[in-house]
């Protein structure tokens, strides 16, 4: 049945019972823009740190400086969003009182702490000119923490009872990796001189491709075990669907612009803005899909009921 402003519903309305239609799961207490903003900034910082170290190694000083500054700034801003997200922000250091491998948030807190320190040191060294070898070593360290920071967030939201997030555990890390590459490439081609930004442009295009491919599989539930069409439905409909469609167009336009940008700074900046917009829409879309998935008992009951009756 076609609905205004939405795609045709591919899943027939499943019959299911519930307690007066009330949700079974709690609505995630994480809020926008904090949570999706952090997902974006963590990815940006992680991929930018990786890019900076590679630029360093290949003698691209301006690109390295841009990467280091981007990585450090995004790490600080992302941490601020995370702290503001807490119910008791003054207790943020409790995140570091234990290390718990079973908690992706514990693992992520330690990675973010290490990454924040390393990117801060690398950026400070680059800006002040103090101890370049130490700055370079910190940059190499951040190139190791960066890829983890950019992708662990997929595990962070997948390790929940929220069906759309949990069943997306194969797709989300790749989606965030691609989106992070596109974000970091976008920032670098906007701020670094065009003659040094060739790798950033290639990174942006590769990242955009990965982001589009991963988003496509997530939105269609490819590879999800049970009721893929139903569980992925929140990614295609409502506000999340709109955001993810916008993400697709912005990312595709940004990638196309990057391909033709060459050394035109204006085209590079515009393409970078489109890619950044796409990455942000991706994160907000994924976030909102999770809220819908948790609040409608259908997404909890129907797949579980089917599992129970098949005895799987």
């Amino acid at each position: 049945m076609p609905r205004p402003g939405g795609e045709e519903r591919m899943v027939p309305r499943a019959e299911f019972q519930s307690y007066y239609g009330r949700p079974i799961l709690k609505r995630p207490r994480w809020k926008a823009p904090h949570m999706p903003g952090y997902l974006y900034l963590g990815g940006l910082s992680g991929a930018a740190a990786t890019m900076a170290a590679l630029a360093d190694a290949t003698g691209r000083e301006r690109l390295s400086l841009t990467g280091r500054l981007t990585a450090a700034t995004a790490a600080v801003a992302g941490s601020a969003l995370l702290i503001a997200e807490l119910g008791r922000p003054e207790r943020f250091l409790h995140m570091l009182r234990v290390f718990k491998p079973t908690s992706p948030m514990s693992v992520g807190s330690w990675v973010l702490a290490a990454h924040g320190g390393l990117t801060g040191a690398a950026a400070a060294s680059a800006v002040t000119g103090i101890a370049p070898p130490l700055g370079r070593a910190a940059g190499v360290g951040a190139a190791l923490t960066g890829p983890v920071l950019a992708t662990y967030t997929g595990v962070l939201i997948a390790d929940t009872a929220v069906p759309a997030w949990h069943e997306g555990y194969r797709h989300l890390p790749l989606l965030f990796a691609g989106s992070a590459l596109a974000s970091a490439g976008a920032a670098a081609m906007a701020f670094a001189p065009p003659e040094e930004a060739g790798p950033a442009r290639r990174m942006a295009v590769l990242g955009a491709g990965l982001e589009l491919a991963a988003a496509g599989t997530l939105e269609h539930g490819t590879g999800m075990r049970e009721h893929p069409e139903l569980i992925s439905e929140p990614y295609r409909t409502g506000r999340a669907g709109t955001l993810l469609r916008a993400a697709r167009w912005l990312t595709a336009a940004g990638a196309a612009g990057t391909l033709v940008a060459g050394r035109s700074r204006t085209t590079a900046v515009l393409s970078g803005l489109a890619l950044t917009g796409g990455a942000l829409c991706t994160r907000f879309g994924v976030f909102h899909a999770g809220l819908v998935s948790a609040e409608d008992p259908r997404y909890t009951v129907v797949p579980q009921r089917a599992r129970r009756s098949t005895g799987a």
Partner: protein
Amino acid sequence: MNHRLHGPLTDVAEDAGYADPPERAGFFTDTSVCIGCKACEVACKEWNAIPDDGFALTGMSYDNTGALGASTWRHVAFVEQSKPREVDDGAGSSRWLMASDVCKHCTHAACLDVCPTGALFRTEFATVVVQQDICNGCAYCVSACPYGVIDRREGDGRAWKCTMCYDRLGDGMEPACAKACPTDSIQYGPLDELRERAKERLGDLHDQGVTEARLYGEDENDGVGGDGAFFLLLDEPEVYGLPPDPVVTTRDLTAMWKWAGGAAAALVGCAAVSFLGRR
């Protein structure tokens, strides 16, 4: 790290590091004798000094509590059904189902697994409790619970849920809700004993022709390794607002990290490839 993330587990407290723990404590809530009086809700509020959770009327039934939450650790569901009963006892074609819901104190508790601060912990009774001086309100547990039990209290900022009256258990007392229940719908005791008692009760009900009676959460082979608080229900779990087949999310944690590792490698690979070439 040898802690099991899913599957049956007979020594839950030992697995958490207790050398010589007491027997695993549990609730058996037999909803077939619940009269919906909500004494459990009141006793829980009183004993644990829980603030109010609003005074709204739901307008859907005699249940004006709605759901478990940060300030509601027992919730009496009230279901009005007009479908024909399987046993015609002259009571007509409608029935009321009442059930006092509570935290399940899972064998494999997702809330505990994902808690980054260690605020949530396993007690010596194998129950799951939040340490309020540690919780920083990150709300990870809220999204991890497959039953939608734990929540963050607005204005307070921390996560709260049933403690199975941890402060009473240490003194050999039963939890306030079980103490207050006038029909023994809520039974507290060693989990093994409760499981035996529940099987007997289920057999009796089936003998009486109440074929729709079934146990919920008693099976250690289920997705959470069995519940510390389990139920006897008279209809499908979802009718009471319970998930039909919950699975602890951390069951898939290893697979999740593998996919993330692959994605991190892809990120490095794409970045490295981008630096091939001269400009």
